[in-house]
């Protein structure tokens, strides 16, 4: 059975190689049949990979311990759901998942465009299949999920497996990798179209229009993947944090940052014909960072608490990435003539300028995170010493960046294209600025002195008021015309221009997350040894240890404390933080924290073990942290709104590039509408 699986993957690899050659040769020699057969090869290799994945999943679910991968990641006592999610619990399986998702995306792209873009598609197919072949190469050899445990000539099965690390047996960890992969892998599609557009010297923006939905959906999945990971870290790891600036975390954030920059700068290209070269660079950088992130995570080149052991795949990735970067750079430089801007920056006080600053600051953040993450590697190459930097470095640079971004989020949407006068700015930003200052005054009066926190809250108020004003202004206009209720008018307003108002909702979501982040400036922490009946307090809570118990079941042994929570003398809650020791594999300890989640703050208790008959309890108060998860929900909602087609189609007056004179790189421009 494992032979069938391995064979399917080899066949899929062959089909993907054929697809590359079929597309390129078919396009070059003008043989549409070859191109068509290449597209069918894409579908065929998808089918083969689906089959292979199904076989692996079957092996996992039935605990087929002859397979090395199954024995390492599954044990009989595990709940069924986690036997399925063990598919991505280890190196080989998760690479197969990556590869299969890429196959799904490729098949979808090929099928969606079977009647469109006939000139570009062969190159799109070839680009997709080049990456596909690479991943199939990895899982065919050296990292096959279908390897069996063999001694001599005998295939032996072990009686029971290692099981999935219990830290990963949690619902948000179950869906975090596939969600993240749906993001990581998805960014190849806009890249492939960008390459197709460059290679065929397309004069227009067809590749951007086509891929807008792809980019949005991919970005949404990436955001969800990152936030699910953060939510898991918060609820499961026991230290109460949701982001550690760990290299693997950073790896997932880097392409997200460039993708966010890209989502904004494409607006400049669509409306003003500016930033064409830059958008090519951004979409390529996003793709490269995805591959780089995959490489960083799996190669062990930078040590991380997400322990990925030394792996042989480092050189494969390095080669793949270098060739791609070199080829893309050459292509962009060669086609510079076709990417000339149609407009230029006219004033620093303009929407163009705010988009430029948005990109600048996002890229600065990306670079600083990349630098900090790779510092040990760079310092070792330069000085021979492996020096690393920690969370304080990342926070120091990225907090001011975040605050500046917040400011731009408020200012950008309201500032005019080309140039804005001071008068118009004063009118637009009067109330938001007043609101921000008033809030600062109130918070200062309440005793808050933390500078960054004050700035953050002020800017959050600023942005929220600008967005509220936009919605009210637009809705009022509609309400007067149609006589609708104001709220109903807001829905109508959003529906008429889902991109703009969906975008505003996403901005509000980001503001909500910033409110959550800022709360961390006021965290309280206390670690204490308590016996039964002991009392202690933290923040506004008084806590009493009602009992300390221990027990055991087939999967793990446990110890926990039952803690009663009082406020103002009244009992408001009971929390039971627990610690477990899993019996499978080499024994894995895990903390099951208990959290009282409220809008204004979380009370978080971690049972850290027993010491001389007393329980060690870590208590935390995390103000406003719940706003991060609320912002997460709002982000999903806002992005979905963006994806709904607008009721009214907008056409922007701009010069349409009709073609390029051969041999000379000046576009013939026709003013269209």
């Amino acid at each position: 059975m494992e032979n069938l699986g391995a064979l399917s993957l080899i066949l899929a690899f062959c089909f993907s190689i054929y697809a590359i050659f079929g597309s390129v040769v078919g396009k070059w020699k003008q043989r549409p049949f070859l191109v068509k057969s290449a597209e069918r090869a894409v579908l065929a290799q998808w089918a083969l990979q689906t089959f292979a994945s199904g076989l692996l999943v079957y092996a996992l679910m039935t605990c087929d311990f002859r397979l090395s991968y199954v024995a390492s990641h599954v044990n009989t006592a595990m709940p069924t759901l986690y036997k399925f999610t063990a598919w991505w619990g280890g190196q080989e399986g998760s690479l197969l998942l990556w590869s299969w998702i890429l196959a799904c995306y490729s098949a979808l792209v090929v099928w969606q465009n079977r009647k469109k873009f006939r000139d570009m598609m062969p190159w799109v197919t070839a680009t997709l299949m080049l990456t596909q072949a690479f991943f199939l190469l990895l899982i065919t050899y050296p990292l096959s999920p279908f390897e069996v445990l063999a001694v001599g000539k005998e295939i032996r099965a072990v009686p029971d497996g290692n099981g999935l690390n219990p830290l990963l047996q949690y619902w948000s960890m179950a869906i975090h990798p596939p969600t993240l992969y749906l993001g990581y892998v998805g960014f190849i599609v806009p890249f492939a179209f960008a390459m197709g557009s460059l290679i065929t010297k397309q004069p227009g923006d067809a590749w951007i229009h086509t891929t807008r939905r792809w980019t949005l959906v991919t970005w949404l999945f990436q955001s969800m993947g990152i936030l699910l990971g953060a939510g898991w870290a918060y609820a499961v790891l026991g230290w109460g944090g949701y982001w550690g600036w760990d290299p693997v975390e950073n790896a997932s954030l880097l392409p997200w940052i460039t993708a966010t920059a890209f989502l904004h700068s494409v607006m400049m290209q669509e409306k003003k014909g500016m930033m064409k070269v830059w958008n090519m660079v951004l979409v390529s950088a996003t793709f490269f960072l995805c591959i780089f992130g995959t490489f960083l995570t799996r190669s062990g080149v930078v040590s991380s608490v997400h322990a990925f052991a030394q792996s042989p795949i480092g050189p494969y990735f390095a080669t793949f990435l270098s060739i791609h970067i070199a080829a893309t750079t050459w292509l962009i430089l060669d086609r510079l003539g076709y990417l000339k801007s149609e407009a230029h920056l006219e004033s620093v006080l303009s929407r163009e300028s705010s988009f430029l600053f948005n990109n600048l600051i996002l890229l600065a953040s990306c670079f600083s995170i990349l630098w900090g993450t790779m510092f040990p590697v760079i310092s070792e190459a330069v000085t021979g010493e492996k020096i690393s930097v920690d969370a304080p470095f990342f926070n120091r640079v990225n907090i001011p960046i975040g605050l500046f971004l917040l400011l731009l989020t408020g200012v950008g949407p309201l500032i005019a294209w080309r140039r804005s006068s001071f008068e118009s700015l004063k009118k637009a930003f009067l109330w938001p600025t007043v609101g921000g200052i008033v809030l600062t005054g109130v918070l200062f009066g309440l005793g808050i002195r933390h500078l960054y926190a004050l700035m953050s809250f002020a800017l959050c108020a600023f942005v929220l008021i600008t967005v509220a004003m936009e919605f009210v202004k637009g809705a009022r206009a509609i309400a007067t015309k149609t006589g609708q209720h104001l709220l109903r008018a807001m829905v109508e307003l959003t529906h008429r221009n889902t991109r703009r108002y969906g975008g505003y909702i996403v901005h509000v979501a980001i503001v909500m997350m910033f409110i959550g982040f800022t709360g961390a400036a006021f965290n309280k922490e206390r670690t204490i040894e308590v016996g039964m009946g002991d009392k202690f307090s933290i923040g506004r809570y008084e806590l009493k240890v009602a009992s300390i118990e221990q027990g055991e079941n087939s999967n793990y042994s446990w110890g926990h404390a039952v803690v009663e929570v009082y406020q103002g003398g009244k009992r408001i809650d009971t929390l039971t933080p627990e610690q477990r020791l899993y019996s499978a594999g080499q024994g894995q300890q895990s903390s099951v924290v208990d959290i009282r989640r409220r809008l204004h703050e979380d009370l978080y208790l971690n049972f850290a073990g027993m010491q001389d008959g007393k329980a060690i309890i870590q208590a935390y108060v995390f103000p406003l942290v719940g706003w991060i998860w609320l912002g997460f929900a709002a982000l999903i909602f806002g992005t979905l709104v963006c994806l709904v087609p607008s009721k009214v189609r907008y056409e922007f007056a701009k010069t349409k590039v009709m073609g390029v004179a051969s041999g000379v790189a000046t576009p013939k421009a026709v003013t269209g509408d």
Partner: protein
Amino acid sequence: MKPYVKFGLLTAVIIGTLAWLAVGGISDTKSYYKEVAELKKMGDDVYTKRLRVAGDVAEGSVERSGREVRFLLKQNDLTLPVVYDSMDPLPDTFKGGAQAVAHGKMGRDGVFHANKVDAKCASKYEAKPGQKYQTPGQTAPPASDTKASF
């Protein structure tokens, strides 16, 4: 002034500020990564620099007395005594045999004083290349036989 010049100046100010923050951040938090074997070669520097020492936690060497935890970090034949004394509990993944990184400073008494210990997440991606999954009590099969033939 032309808009590009103004824009360029603002950009320079922003980048300059960030670079200044970054450099400060690096020098404040940088720590040197060393393996146990490399510590001996450091000479007197070893007492002044912030260090992260990597090694394996020697089986059976973990002793707890009160809040203090003492253990041996070993690499090949070399061992380094480490003392960890902090209210924060050790990570769930810390136990004999685990790969660990101790953050802190080397004391003149020859004991490494750690204020933080990371232990490798008993992993998703476990075995070193060439090594295969083993049940307890079974020795690793010879490398040449570990691939199934088909």
